């Protein structure tokens, strides 16, 4: 790879560039710190003049998410981005997308809550993302990038998954990954799909006049309970497929580990440094980084738990993913949580102190 292909940019900027390059048809969003650079970068890049991608500053987050319903329903690769309180506003739209099985990409660059909270980084939306803040039995696929490179790489991955399963996909980042600059190699250019390609690939899409078939209707409303039950069973079967096929995680130094830190996104980066320091002190500790938060790497956590004397869930929140870890571990070993809230980001040293506090034999 040529040196000139390596760029230095913020995670937010990387998302915007990657969207243009991976054939995104439309972005609809409303500014909010710490992710406004996504909309700003798209506005300055003017992709409507090159790829034809639409970039629209909507009147609100509620409008944005419903524009995804329309665009995604027409088989277009559409996305929005916001930060925690803005994503909270979108929850109704997200459950409608899930119910109507409309593919879409939602980026959440998290900040501290609850409420309007703070503009500083947090991972307090794990529950909102993995459990769903909207109503009904639904899931969205949740990808947790831990670097600027993954911010770029996950855009195309998210669209691929969204269309493969007709499901909303969320990239769950946070203020650290959004604001930091690192090296990044942007994905190669890929054209937007043509109308013919959409017609071929998305036979369910509402693409206007279709004389050769019955009209498609995309709705989450079904008043007949029997039909609604069948729809729910279909959705649940789809979710089981995703759980079986799409779990992603990374491990570091787990082979001989007797202690495990589980961390995602920016917390995983902080944990890496803590683990490097502890390894230097002959503490056999490793890292499991869930890349998909839903589907969660339940089976891998279960396998690893049999060799561990203790597991620390390190999250920048009050303890949310730790519940998924405990469900996987089923009491086989000790599971503790460490985290901070309110936009305070723990340092590697504090993670090490937490390990010693929770596992006093270390």
């Amino acid at each position: 790879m040529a040196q000139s292909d390596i760029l230095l940019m913020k995670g937010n900027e990387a998302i915007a560039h990657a969207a243009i390059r991976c054939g995104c048809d439309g972005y609809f969003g409303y500014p909010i710190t710490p992710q406004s650079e996504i909309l700003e970068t798209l506005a300055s890049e003017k992709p409507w003049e090159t790829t034809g991608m639409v970039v629209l500053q909507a009147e609100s987050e509620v409008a944005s998410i419903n524009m995804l319903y329309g665009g995604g329903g027409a088989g277009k690769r559409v996305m929005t981005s916001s930060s925690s309180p803005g994503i909270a506003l979108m929850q109704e739209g997200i459950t409608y997308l899930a119910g109507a099985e409309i593919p879409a990409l939602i980026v959440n660059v998290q900040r501290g809550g609850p409420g309007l909270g703070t503009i500083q980084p947090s991972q307090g939306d794990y529950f909102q993302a993995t459990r769903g803040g909207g109503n009904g039995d639904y899931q969205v696929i949740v990808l947790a990038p831990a670097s600027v490179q993954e911010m770029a790489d996950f855009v195309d991955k998210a669209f691929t998954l969204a269309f493969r399963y007709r499901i909303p996909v969320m990239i769950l980042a946070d203020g650290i990954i959004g604001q930091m600059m690192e090296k990044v190699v942007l994905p190669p250019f890929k054209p937007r799909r043509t109308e013919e390609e959409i017609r071929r690939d998305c036979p369910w899409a509402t693409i206007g006049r279709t004389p050769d078939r019955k009209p498609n209707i995309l709705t989450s409303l079904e008043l007949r309970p029997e039909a609604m039950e069948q729809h729910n069973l279909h959705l649940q079967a789809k979710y089981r497929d995703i759980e079986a096929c799409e779990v992603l995680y990374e491990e570091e130094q787990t082979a001989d580990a007797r202690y495990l830190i589980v961390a995602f996104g920016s917390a995983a980066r902080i944990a890496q440094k803590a683990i490097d320091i502890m390894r230097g002190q002959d503490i056999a500790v490793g890292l499991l980084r869930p890349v998909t938060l839903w589907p969660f790497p339940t089976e891998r956590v279960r396998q690893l738990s049999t060799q561990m004397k203790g597991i620390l869930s390190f999250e920048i929140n009050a303890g949310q993913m730790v519940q998924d870890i405990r469900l996987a571990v089923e009491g086989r070993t000790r599971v503790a949580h460490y985290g901070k809230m309110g936009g305070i980001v723990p340092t590697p040293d504090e993670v090490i102190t937490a390990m010693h506090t929770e596992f006093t034999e270390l």
Partner: protein
Amino acid sequence: MTQEIIISGFGGQGVLSMGKILAYSALMEGKEVSWMPAYGPEQRGGTANVTVIVSDERISSPIVSTFDTAVILNQPSLDRFESTVKPGGTLIYDGYGISQPPRRTDITVYRIDAMDAAAELGNAKGFNMIVLGALLKVHPLVRIDNVLQALRKTLPERHHHLLPANEEALRKGMSIIEQQ
């Protein structure tokens, strides 16, 4: 080799830009870099700081609690970061407006009067490049010609006529350290 650097001062002094130029120059030399700003409702006169890590190896945490080098451009930054320099580390500070100079004796301290030097050059906006020149004289993390190349690549073309003034400021910063 890994250098964990904090650059801290007032908003408007060019703290974030200086960090970006440093990171970009290091990237051009094939090094690993991270640039993590303290972001917020920043404004001219408020506080601004950025953590820049330059390394030959993969960078794990972009957020650290102690630093190899602190570049300090005002009193509140000195108060906050003097204690975070690792023993044996380096602290470079601009003397302007500093009423309580650093007291650590287990680190190497350089005072540079970059604000005065910028005035001398008639280039107030060159302040951050004077500071960067001083930093690079103390720690030759990247070559000066790569810094100039980085400036060329990151500055919009309409500002390219300022490149000679930036080079002059960088060299001024280096000479301040040389004379100590």
